[in-house]
C-alpha cells in the first residue's frame, strides 16, 4: 500500500515537473518535431495515392547533404543569406529528384516498393558518405551557418497560457514555422479539393479511378515527387536551420519515426503532425532531464535512468505506437499495391 502511494506521489511530482518545464520546452518540441512532421507529410501524400515510401530516411539525408553542400559552396561567392536560400531550394529539388527515382521504380517499373525504398536508404548513406569524405571533410571549413530563428515579441511571450504557445510557433526558423501552414493547407487540400479527391480515389480503388478517366499512374507519380519535396525540406531543416553542419547518417532514423507518426495520425496531415509533436516531446524529455532535472526524489529517480535510455526512447516509442495503433488504423486500401492496367498482362481466367 505504502509502495503504491509512493509511486503515486512520484507520478504527481512528475506531472508538476512537466507542467513547469513544458511551456519553456514547447519551442524545442516543435523544432524536434519539424523534420518528423515534414517526413510524415511526405508519407501521407505518397501513401494516400497508394505508394509506400520507406526511403524517406534516405531522401532526407540526401537533401540534408546537398542543401548543406550548396551552402558550403556558395557561401563565399554570394554570401551567407543567399547561400542558405539556395541551399534550401537545392534540398527540396534533391528530395524531388530522389522522389522521381522512387516513383519511376515503383510506378513505372513496378518494382517492389519496400526494396526500392531500402535501395534509396542505402544509396543515400553511400553517396553522402562518399562525397562528405571526398569534398567536405578535407576542406576543413564549415558551411553557410543556419537560418536565423525569429523571436516572439516579449509582450506576447509573457501572456499567460497563450504566451508559451505563441513562442512555440514564433521562436522558430522559417522552415519550422512553415510546417504549420503546410499541415493546414494539406489537410484542406486532401479533403476538399479536386486533387485530394482524386488522390484518395487512386489510393483506395485505382481501377475505379481509371474507369472514370483519371490517369492513375500520373496521379501517383505527381504525388510521390511532390511529397518527396517535403522530405527534402525536412533535410534542409536538419543542416540549414537546426545544426549548421553535416554528419554521416545524421537523420538517425527520423524517416522511420516519421512513418510511425503518419500511421499514428491515420494518414491525415493534422494527425501526422500530432504524432510528430508526440515524438518531438519524447525526445525533448531526454534533453531537458539532463539540462534541468527536477528536485528531490523524482530528480534522483530520473537521473538514475541512464541517458542512453532517454536517447532510445523515441525508437522504443515508435515500436510501441506501431504495435498499438497499426492494427486498428486502416491504411488506404490500395497502399503498396502497384497498379497495372488490364490487357497489358494476360487477364486471369
Amino acid at each position, binding site marked *: 500500500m505504502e509502495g503504491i502511494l509512493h509511486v503515486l506521489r512520484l507520478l504527481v511530482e512528475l506531472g508538476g515537473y512537466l507542467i513547469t518545464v513544458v511551456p519553456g520546452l514547447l519551442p524545442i518540441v516543435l523544432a524536434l518535431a519539424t523534420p518528423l512532421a515534414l517526413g510524415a507529410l511526405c508519407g501521407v501524400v505518397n501513401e494516400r495515392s497508394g505508394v509506400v515510401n520507406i526511403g524517406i530516411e534516405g531522401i532526407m539525408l540526401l537533401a540534408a547533404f546537398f542543401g548543406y553542400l550548396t551552402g558550403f559552396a556558395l557561401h563565399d561567392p554570394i554570401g551567407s543569406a543567399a547561400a542558405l536560400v539556395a541551399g534550401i531550394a537545392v534540398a527540396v529539388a534533391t528530395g524531388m529528384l530522389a522522389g522521381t527515382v522512387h516513383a519511376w521504380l515503383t510506378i513505372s517499373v513496378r518494382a517492389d516498393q519496400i526494396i526500392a525504398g531500402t535501395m534509396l536508404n*542505402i544509396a543515400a548513406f553511400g553517396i553522402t558518405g562518399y562525397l562528405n569524405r571526398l569534398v567536405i571533410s578535407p576542406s576543413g571549413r564549415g558551411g553557410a551557418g543556419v537560418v536565423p530563428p525569429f523571436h516572439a515579441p516579449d509582450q506576447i511571450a509573457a501572456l499567460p497560457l497563450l504566451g508559451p504557445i505563441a513562442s512555440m510557433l514564433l521562436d522558430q526558423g522559417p522552415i519550422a514555422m512553415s510546417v504549420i501552414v503546410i499541415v493546414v493547407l494539406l489537410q484542406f487540400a486532401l479533403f476538399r479539393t479536386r486533387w485530394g479527391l482524386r488522390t484518395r480515389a487512386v489510393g483506395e480503388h485505382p481501377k475505379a479511378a481509371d474507369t472514370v478517366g483519371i490517369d492513375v499512374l500520373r496521379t501517383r507519380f505527381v504525388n510521390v515527387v511532390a511529397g518527396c519535396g517535403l522530405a527534402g525540406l525536412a533535410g534542409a531543416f536538419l543542416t540549414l536551420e537546426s545544426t549548421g553542419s553535416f554528419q554521416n547518417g545524421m537523420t538517425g532514423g527520423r524517416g522511420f519515426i516519421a512513418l510511425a507518426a503518419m500511421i499514428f495520425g491515420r494518414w491525415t496531415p493534422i494527425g501526422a503532425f500530432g504524432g510528430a509533436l508526440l515524438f518531438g516531446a519524447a525526445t525533448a524529455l531526454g534533453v531537458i532531464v539532463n539540462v534541468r532535472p527536477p528536485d528531490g526524489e523524482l530528480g534522483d529517480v530520473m537521473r538514475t535512468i541512464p541517458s542512453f535510455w532517454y536517447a532510445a526512447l523515441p525508437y522504443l516509442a515508435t515500436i510501441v505506437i506501431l504495435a498499438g495503433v497499426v492494427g486498428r488504423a486502416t491504411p488506404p486500401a490500395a497502399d503498396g499495391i502497384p497498379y497495372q492496367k488490364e490487357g497489358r498482362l494476360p487477364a486471369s481466367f
Partner: protein
Amino acid sequence: MTLARRTLDGWRLVAVPALSILLALALAAAVIVVSSAFTPGGLDVLLPVRAYSSLAAGAFGSPTAIGNTLVGAAPLVLGGLSVALAFKAGLFNIGVAGQFLAGAFAAAVMGAWAAAAFAPLAVAAALIAGAVAGGVIGFIPGFLKARTGAHEVVTTIMLNNAAALLLTWAVTDLVRAPGFSFPRTGDIGNAALPVLAGRNLHLGILLALIAVPAVAWMLDRTTIGFEIRSVGANPVAARYSGMRPVLVTALTMTLAGVLGGMAGAIQMLGVIGFYAPGITASVGFDSIAVALVGRSDPVGVVLAAVLFGAFRAGAPLMQIETSVPVEVIDIIQALVILFLAADVLVRRVFRIRRARGGLGEPETVTRSWSSPEVATAAAEPR
C-alpha cells in the same frame, strides 16, 4: 531436360544478378570519374581502373587478402541467409544489424565469462549465447507483426537504433571489464574461435557453410519449411488451410534473428574479440544486398556473400592507394539493388527471359502496413 536447356535456364537465373553487378560497377565508375573533378587531383578518367584494381588486389591479391575476403564473407553468409529466410515467409528483415550487435554482445559477455573454461565448451557457450540473443531481438518484431500487424521494416530498424544505444549503455554501466581505459568487455580467452588455416581463417567460416544446407533442407524438406513458404507465398490460403501465420511469422523472424545473432557471434569470437561502444555493423545492409543478389537461394547467398566480402576486404586498400572513399561500396550496393529491383528493365535491355516455371525467382516481399490477413488472425479462436 537436355543439357543445353539446363544451361540456358541456369544462365537466365544468374544473368540478371550478374548484369546488375556489372552495370552497378560501371555506373559507380562514372561517379568516381565525375567526383574526381572536385578533388585537388582534378578530373581523372582512369581513376576507376586504378581504384578497381586496388580493390581487387585488396580482396584477392595475396593469400592474406583472400583470407580477409573469406573472413568478411562468413558473417555475410549468415546475415544473407537470415534475410533470405525471412523473404521466404514474406517478411523483410532489415534488423540484421541489431541482431548482429546483440549476438556479438552476448557472445562477448559469455566468452569473457567462460574465458578460462575448456575451449570447446567456452566456444559453444558463447556461440549459443549469441544465437539466443539474436533470436530474442528477431522474435520481438516477428511477434509484434503477427499479433498487431506492426510492420517489421519499421520495427526492426527502430530496434537496430535502440539496440545500439542500449548495448552501449550495457557495456558502459553493466558489464564493463575493469582495467581498461574505455568501456569494453573482458578478453574472451578460450572462447575465441580456433583458426583453421592461414592467418585468420577461423571456425566460423565452416559454421556459416554448414548453415547453408541446413536452412535449405529445412525450407525444402520439412513441414515447418512448407509452412514458412506457404505463409510467404499466400498467407490467406495458409490460414484457411489451418496453418498459423501468427506462429509462423514469429518463428521465422526468431530463426532469422538466430542467424543474424550467429553472424555477430562468429565475428566477435573470430575477429573482434571484445565488445566496445561504436562497433558498427555494415553487415546489416550488406546482408540485404547479399540476399537479393543471391535471389534468396542458399548457393546464391554464398556467392553473393563472397562478392560483398571481397568489396569490404578490398575497400580500405583502394582508399589508401587511390583516395576513392570506401563509401563507394555502399553506392555500388545500392545500384546493384536498384537494377535488381528494376529487373524488368534489365531483362528488357538485355533480352533475357524468365527461367521456366519461375524456378528460384525471388518472391515479392511487400504488402502494406497492416496485412489484414495477419491482423484478422487475432479474431481466430485459439
